[in-house]
């Protein structure tokens, strides 16, 4: 990725496994598409947004250290989810919005792939007139 260091990209993949568990089932091509979509989205944003995103990943990674003695990627899954739920509902707005932005990026990387449409049952049709009534 151009937008993130390899270390941060690896951490992003750990987060993705909790946000969208199906990302663990992506093959190498799918994972490549996942990172490519996110990277392009970050590249299209101002540099300040890229810096904020990278900083937020850092905050997220080390936020659990005080309580659990380990960075987030070293925790077991249940504790990772607990930390992420705390951020989603955080009383500090900037952390809430940061978490929303993170989720949006991961959702974009996964659900934004046309190849995953079938997995959720989304089957658009340019001419759907014959399909209007179930």
């Amino acid at each position, binding site marked *: 990725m151009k937008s993130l260091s390899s270390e941060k990209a690896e951490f992003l993949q750990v987060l993705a496994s*909790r*946000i*969208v*568990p*199906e990302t663990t089932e992506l093959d190498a091509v799918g994972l490549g598409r996942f990172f490519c*979509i996110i990277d*392009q*989205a970050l590249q*299209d*944003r*101002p540099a300040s947004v890229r810096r904020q995103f990278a900083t937020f990943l850092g905050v997220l990674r080390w936020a659990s250290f005080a309580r659990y003695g380990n960075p987030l990627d070293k925790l077991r899954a249940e504790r990772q*989810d607990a930390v*992420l739920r705390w951020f*989603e*509902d955080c009383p500090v*707005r*900037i952390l*809430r*919005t*940061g*978490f*929303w*932005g993170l*989720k*949006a990026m991961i*959702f*974009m990387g*996964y*659900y*934004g*792939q*046309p190849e*995953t*449409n079938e*997995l*959720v*049952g*989304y*089957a*658009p*049709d*340019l*001419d*759907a*007139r014959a*399909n*209007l*009534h*179930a």
Partner: protein
Amino acid sequence: MRPISTPGQISMREKEFDIVIIGSGAGGGVAAKELAPLCVDGKRIAVLEWGAKLKDEEFSGREVDMASKLFFDSGGTFTADRAMTLAYGRAYGGSTVIYTGTSLIMPEDVVERWSVPGLEFTDLHRRSMKYFEENNVHRLGDNEINDNNRLFLKGCEKLGYRVEQFPINVKGCKGSSLCNLGCPNKAKQGTDRVQLPKAEGLGVEVITNCRVTTIGDRVCEAIVTDPGFGEPSKWEPGEYRVKAKVVVLCAGGVVNSPGLLLRSGFCDHLPMLGRSITLHPALILVGEHEDSITNFHGFPKSYYCDEFMKLDKFLLETCMYFPFVTAKNLIGFGAQHSELMRAFPKLQMILVLALDAAVPENRVTLDAHGDLVIDYTLTEPVLDSLHASMLASTKVFFAAGARRVHAPAGKRFFIDAADADRVDELIPRANVKPGKISITSAHLMGGCGMGRDTTDSVTDGWGRVHDVPWLYVGDSSLFPQCSEVNPYVTVMALADRVAEGIRNNVGELLS
């Protein structure tokens, strides 16, 4: 005004026109068509459009791909506090390429509340009807309405909520439901299909991939680029100095019209420039039914409920979005979120919109680096409206037969039908948390509001910027307050009026 560069300082190509229109959406496209007859009299008119003109075959319906090509910031422009995202178009045809085409006339009581000198409901109504006809606005027949929409109607009727059918501007709709990614069937009657071709047929030049960076005294500086998709611009990539002997008309939308004027230094005598924007904040709820329904096949937005507009200040509308947009509008993550996404064919969706008051502190402005910033605070009354809208929508889902509902402010991820009588308790007001809940805007309004003088507005009732006789505005930034209905028809009616004013003043302006 800031001094604009002079020829010789930078290698710029020079172009000269009589009228320069910035933007080609609902406002710019209409103005271009209405002013086009002047070309027959030898006047030269250019439309400078930032976005690309996509070839018909490029409307692929692929969500992320089309969002990046047709929207500013791929449909996710942030407000300064990151609590909202704004979606507005960047294309030949502007936002008319990516809207759903629901066509409503602004109510008379709203026109009266706007209190713009010389702006009368009868005039706006007449002009609106002109565009109803021009854009083939009509209501779909029963056989063209899918289950997602029928269930909304069923739910509202069962609860006794007033529900109306949207007139829409389509011709030959094939029910792809891809309206918000650009209609792949050329059915949506945006300015790209109706007004711009007419304007070009009479001699108006539309220059795409052309971003105006500054406006000076009857001159614009612009940059033409090659984005790598769409038809090539009529001008070579590079920097341009575009003279407008008569008029410059800004129709770049709520972010870019005031933004351009702010960058160009017009704020010095226009204290209201950029101020009092309204965004019609919106969010989505989903209801899951037992069986698959037709939701992503068929026109997505056929009904609205305005039962709660007067007292609670919100609207409900049917909607259908794509997998990524749906995913980011749900709260939560992990297994439950995935479970709901995998029920995509069973999902009914409702869009709620809150009426926001125009307050001067909500504005488009420039930061210390000269970059555009959208300062917008979600007020407590708006959050109250969004909360109330979630209660009403959830009840509509259950009345329509949904087995469970996901409400962004719900105590639980799912509210089951068995708890349908506890909706008020299960969706507490305290859970309406900006930053956690995805709140968006596709109806951007204000920033160059019409009014009496510079103390309360930026333009007069004909879109002419106060004390700048050659400068006009012709888009939704003219709105002094929220239109309370989907705005595009009102934009067209106002742009029609602005163009008439320009035609009437051409002689004076030339002299």
